[in-house]
């Protein structure tokens, strides 16, 4: 068979069978040998791998800490940058940070970390990025209490920016109402209501946007529901503006 296959230039069945068996054996030996070699190498490198692992873990922890610090710095910078235009706009403006809230949320007030020592006075206006926040109600040496525009004691002379219709922006705990507006006024949802010149605020500071109008058929006045210009539940930095 070998000779015939040699003459025909092909492989004999014996050769095919032999080479196949040999290939399987070689593959098996090679795999086992590779595995053993790899295992021996790993065992030999174990102390080095362990130290590398510890070093990488420490490095990862340090990077995570640094990342968290950088995020905190970036957030702080963004918060400062958001109120910086207000500080630049008004002379004597005082930047402050919100540090507290009423214990049971029974009123809509906040506590800020600036008081009489920083020049804060009662009835000063408080603004944030976007518009009016409220007015200073009580001043301590190092902190002040601010009544938000949504508090039931808040009453601000206000005017519709387009149309100049006057009214009073009053808090009703959950939002702000724009009351005592003449029935002649054409109030439309989406219009911006701003402060008029008053005891606390300079004119033109946005209070909120009209989201609903109640014409009150038998009433002398109409009123509107406002969405506050500032997210009053997410206050961080504010600016106290003396009048």
């Amino acid at each position, binding site marked *: 068979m070998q000779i015939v296959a040699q003459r025909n230039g092909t492989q004999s069945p014996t050769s095919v069978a032999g080479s196949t068996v040999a290939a399987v054996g070689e593959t098996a030996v090679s795999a086992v040998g590779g595995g053993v070699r790899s295992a021996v190498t790993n065992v030999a490198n174990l102390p080095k791998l362990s130290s590398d692992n510890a070093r990488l873990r420490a490095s990862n922890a340090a990077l995570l800490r640094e990342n968290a610090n950088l995020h905190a710095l970036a957030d702080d910078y963004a918060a400062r940058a958001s109120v910086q235009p207000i500080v630049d706009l008004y002379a004597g403006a005082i930047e402050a940070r919100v540090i507290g809230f*009423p*214990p*049971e*949320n029974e009123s809509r007030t906040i506590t800020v970390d600036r008081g009489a020592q920083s020049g804060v006075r009662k009835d000063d206006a408080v603004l944030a990025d976007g518009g009016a926040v409220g007015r200073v109600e009580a001043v301590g040496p190092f902190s002040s*209490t601010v009544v938000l525009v949504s508090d039931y004691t808040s009453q601000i002379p206000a005017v519709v920016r387009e149309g100049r219709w006057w009214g009073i922006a009053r808090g009703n*705990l959950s939002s702000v109402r724009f009351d005592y507006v003449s029935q002649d006024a054409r109030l439309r949802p989406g219009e911006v209501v701003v402060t008029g010149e008053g005891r606390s605020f300079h004119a033109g500071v946005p209070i909120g946007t009209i989201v609903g109008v109640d014409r009150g058929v038998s009433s002398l006045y109409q009123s509107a529901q406002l969405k506050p210009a500032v997210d009053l539940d997410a206050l961080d930095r504010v600016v106290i503006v003396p009048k």
Partner: protein
Amino acid sequence: MSSSRSKLHEAPFVGPPWWVAGGWLALALLAQVTVLHYVAIRNVEPSFVIVAVVWYAVRVDVRRAAVYGLIAGLCEDALAPGTGAAWTISTTLVAIPASALSRGFFSDSIPIVSVVAAAATLLRNGAFWIVMALQGYPRGLGHIHLHETILQAVMNAAAMAVVMLLVRRFAPPPRL
């Protein structure tokens, strides 16, 4: 006459030491004016102060409970602008019946004390807004406060259950 009829039975004091109760009250007040604002739902946040007051009141006699409620309410009035003495009066008023009723149920029963916390919230907020109205609070916002009170009662009952579970898990068993 037997002297046992003329002298009221007084149960031995098994409540927490004053410094433990004071510490919990201080922590509750601190949480109340800082972090709890961020977990508010529909402008309503749980009251850890009433949880602390009920937790203490059901373990002690009426006099101690009243003093604890008085101090807790005073602290809240000191921290809240424009409430006058409303928290002081309402919290004291709640601590007294909570303590008096505790003679009739087990103070370590989570469902019962949670229900008491909810009832105390309803009673305290009712008393609070009545006092506020007497102090000049405007009318017309009652429905908002009613909704807020009901939601807070549910929150406080849940908070009380969680607190009791944590205390049961980590605190040492009481001395008998």
